[in-house]
């Protein structure tokens, strides 16, 4: 019973529930509002923020879980988003690793760069599994707009990510 409660109250359970809400926002609001014809990627934002706050391993794990969830609703092969988002989370963690004591603007830079790379990983992975045709010059435009949107929304994402992934002692 205690073990079950520990699992339920763990940050990973919280992460899955929060990701469910974030993903629903991605498929509704953010796929509808398209600045310059590009959909902002808040799932990717959450993953790179997790990577920039908690490092490579947590970033990769968050990305893999988030990707697995989004794979279930995309027409692309299952596992593709989990690999690319996992890689994006790890990239964000790796970028922050190079800064000794990262300040807020260093994290923002890491979020921006990891967002650009994360958005490019997906069409690359699509090409690897034979879904050709997406690696075009348009990818650069898409990646830059996604990065700008992510930087704008990142303060909110940092708050949500901190609340979700912080480790708390269970009262049980």
């Amino acid at each position: 019973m205690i073990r079950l409660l520990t699992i339920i109250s763990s940050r990973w359970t919280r992460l899955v529930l929060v990701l469910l809400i974030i993903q629903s926002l991605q498929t509704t609001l953010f796929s509808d509002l398209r600045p310059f014809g590009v959909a902002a990627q808040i799932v990717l934002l959450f993953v790179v923020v997790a990577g920039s706050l908690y490092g490579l391993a947590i970033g990769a794990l968050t990305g893999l879980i988030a990707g697995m969830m989004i794979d279930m609703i995309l027409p692309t092969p299952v596992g593709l988003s989990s690999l690319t988002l996992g890689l994006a989370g790890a990239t964000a963690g790796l970028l922050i690793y190079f800064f000794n004591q990262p300040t807020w603007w260093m994290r923002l830079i890491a979020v921006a760069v990891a967002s650009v790379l994360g958005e490019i990983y997906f069409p690359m992975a699509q090409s690897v599994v034979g879904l050709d045709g997406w690696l075009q010059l348009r990818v650069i435009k898409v990646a830059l707009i996604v990065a700008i949107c992510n930087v704008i929304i990142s303060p909110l994402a940092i708050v949500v990510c901190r609340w979700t992934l912080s480790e708390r002692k269970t009262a049980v």
Partner: protein
Amino acid sequence: MAAGQSTRRRAIILLILSSIILITLDLQNSSSVSSLRSVFGAVFRPVESTSRVVTRPISNAWHGIFDYNEVLDENDRLREKVAQQEGATIAAAASVRLAQELLALNGLPTLAGINAVTTQVIGDSPTNFAQTVEINQGSESGIRVGMPVLNAAGLVGKITKVYGDRAVVMLITDPDFALSIKVINTPRLATTTTTIARSNSATPSPVVPLEPNQTLDSFVSTTTTTTTTTIARFTPSVTTLPATPSGVSSITVPLASDLAVRETGVIEGRGPARQPTVRFIDNSLRFGDIQVGVPIVTAGGSRSLSPPDILIGSVSRVVERLGSAGPVLEIELVADLTNLSFLRVLLYQPITEKVTP
């Protein structure tokens, strides 16, 4: 701390391996992945529906602020277009009905004989690397994977995923989209007509070709009225002259060489920023030079996922290639894929796909 890191590393390796296994399984069309998707969909849909309701005001406010002027301009443009097309639509509808009657009379398949389901678009693709939309009808309405999807203008895409009460439509612009099509080319613009002079007597009249510079008056002495219906980008229909009081009537029919020539190819999407292209067109002499503006329709056939003669678009650019390789055609779609609302799914399956009980 070290134990925690080791567990985390194991979890990452496990997740990476499971991702790769899932990709492999899904590319093999595994049923377990499909059922996993269905289960997740059942959990996720209520959350998504709630989010849609909650975020609708934000979405409306966004569109109100950023798209208002565009909507006004579009409204003006559309009013003008509607006024222009009102007359042509009536003529076109009459021609279509006539064509369908002729096809039915000859036992050929027509679109009118295929059942359809009207659906509404409920969502766009959440990523920037898939040209799909989600519709609010699924397998419960008889929709199956591969069925063609149309809007009022023409072909929009095909069904790629089906759930109980919803389905995913892959748009023509998706790089994974491919469909066999027909290019209806008009090799020459000048029309040569043949006049069949017919009297009331039982003796048949000879068929006399009419020279381009000759007029009908040299053959028919009485005054006649000719009505020609011209629909943009389509071959003009046969013109019939009414019977004359003297009992001699003339019928002008186009020569066989003036009729539209059809050639098949494959249309392929190239992403949202680029027009789809048509490849594998034969570089035959009879087909002639392809004119910009000629229509592109679905080819049909026992192996095609789409019935014949659904309008897709028109040729906007012809890219000639060296050697015997045929030209590549860039296609301007008739359907506006950026603004889809109501769609029609044709419940059509080719004979090769039908499951016999």
